């Protein structure tokens, strides 16, 4: 309770400071007051633009999130069940993760369409996080549980389904929570390679036309979309730890 109160106080202080800095222009004209940004954000005439951009980015993020989660889950599971593939798959994931997404963009642009590049970059981000969390989660079953399953004569499939997979669930859900902001960043970066619309495009356009207030609106939209789903996934994570942890 005390922590929540302190947290709320901290946020209020930060927002007040933002307003003061914007009003007094201490940090120059690129730091507008919060009230101007909020006025722009809630402006009726701007609403279709914001909704279109947010819709496009959320669609790419959701697609990338689903593809990345699916690929990470499948590859981690296959590598776990076929130990011969384990080292190779670890290395593939590490290599994919070490390539900056800015460098991947042009490749996707060649291989895919402008519209699907955001989802593709997003899925790469998600893939790595989910792969790592599932791989480590599948190792989380305790030695005592493994001994028990061995003595009771459980085969490989039953051990996976009834021990390793449930034991991996909290770790998977933690990965899903961390993957959401990464998916959103991936989609926004992907949009910079010529997507027709999206928050990334809004950011680029506002920047190039020196529409500072609009630029901050785009940032707030991205932060809002990130925090909202991050919050939902945190609730899911708590439930998973209470049940399977």
């Amino acid at each position, binding site marked *: 309770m005390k922590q929540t109160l302190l947290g709320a106080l901290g946020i209020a202080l930060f927002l007040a400071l933002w307003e003061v800095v914007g009003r007094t222009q201490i940090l120059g004209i690129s730091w507008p007051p919060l009230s101007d940004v909020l006025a722009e954000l809630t402006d009726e005439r701007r609403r279709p633009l914001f909704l279109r951009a947010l819709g496009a980015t959320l669609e790419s993020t959701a697609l990338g999130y689903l593809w990345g989660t699916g690929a990470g889950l499948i590859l981690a599971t296959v590598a776990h069940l076929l130990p011969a593939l384990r080292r190779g798959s670890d290395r593939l994931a590490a290599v994919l993760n070490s390539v900056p997404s800015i460098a991947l963009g042009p490749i996707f642009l060649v291989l895919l369409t402008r519209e699907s590049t955001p989802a593709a970059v997003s899925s790469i981000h998600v893939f790595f996080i989910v792969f790592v969390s599932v791989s480590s989660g599948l190792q989380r079953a*305790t030695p*005592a549980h493994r*001994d*028990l399953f061995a003595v009771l*004569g*459980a085969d490989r499939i039953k051990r996976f389904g*009834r021990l390793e997979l*449930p034991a991996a669930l909290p770790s998977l859900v933690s990965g899903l929570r961390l993957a959401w902001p990464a998916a959103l960043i991936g989609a926004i970066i992907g949009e910079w390679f010529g997507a027709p619309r999206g928050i990334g495009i809004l950011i680029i356009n506002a920047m190039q036309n020196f529409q500072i207030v609009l630029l901050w609106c785009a940032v707030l939209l991205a932060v809002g979309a990130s925090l909202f789903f991050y919050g939902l996934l945190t609730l899911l994570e708590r439930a998973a730890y209470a049940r399977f942890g």
Partner: protein
Amino acid sequence: MNVAIAIDKVSKRFPLPGDKEGVLALAELSLTIAPGEFVAILGPSGCGKSTLLRLVASLEQPTGGTVTVNGAAPGLVSAQHALGVAFQDHALLPWLSVHDNIALPFRLAGRRIDEPAIARLLELVGLASFEKARPKQLSGGMRQRASIARALVLEPEVLLLDEPFGALDAVTRRQMNVELQRIWSARQITTMLITHSVDEALFLADRVVVMSGRPGRILREVQVPFARPRDPWVMRSEAFHRLVDDLTAALEA
């Protein structure tokens, strides 16, 4: 002679990094357990008694000698789901209820879940009203009772108990011993109990085997003379105390 568990000149060496010799945990140890016999293995910690149980459970392979359970290799017996086991760590799955934990051996064996059998066992171990609870919600003694019910649910040919009450306080431990004695007397399964408590060994077993420290060898074997079912009062008899003194002396030798 009829034999359920045959341990014949078994040695077990654990390799150590940078040391070819490694640690010799067991040295040419031989022991036979008859069908329906309850044998307690007593020894100081680190004497290889748990290793002995792990060999019978097919969790380890011997370096030398052979282990058979009802004439077959332990690996085959566990694949036929004919072993029951309870460890010091209760090893209940935290995401399953008490009922589902006890039903787990049926699922792992691919057999139909025998609900009346589970209900009888829940009753026997005194957890009938806790069948929907999760392990987290139970006390340490209740978790061990659930784990013993799980070990018994498939009516195994052999029951392996590795210090199942080792983590409990003295009072709960004594209660659990009394209960296990009652449960075991109802269905006499070939049982191997690993323990370092002399009282526990004498109260529960038909025969007590004392092991020496590294490498593990058998120092003494004692037939326990008390008739079954055993009343807890047995533990206050003079004969019981004499045997406790006798075995404690052997342990300290």
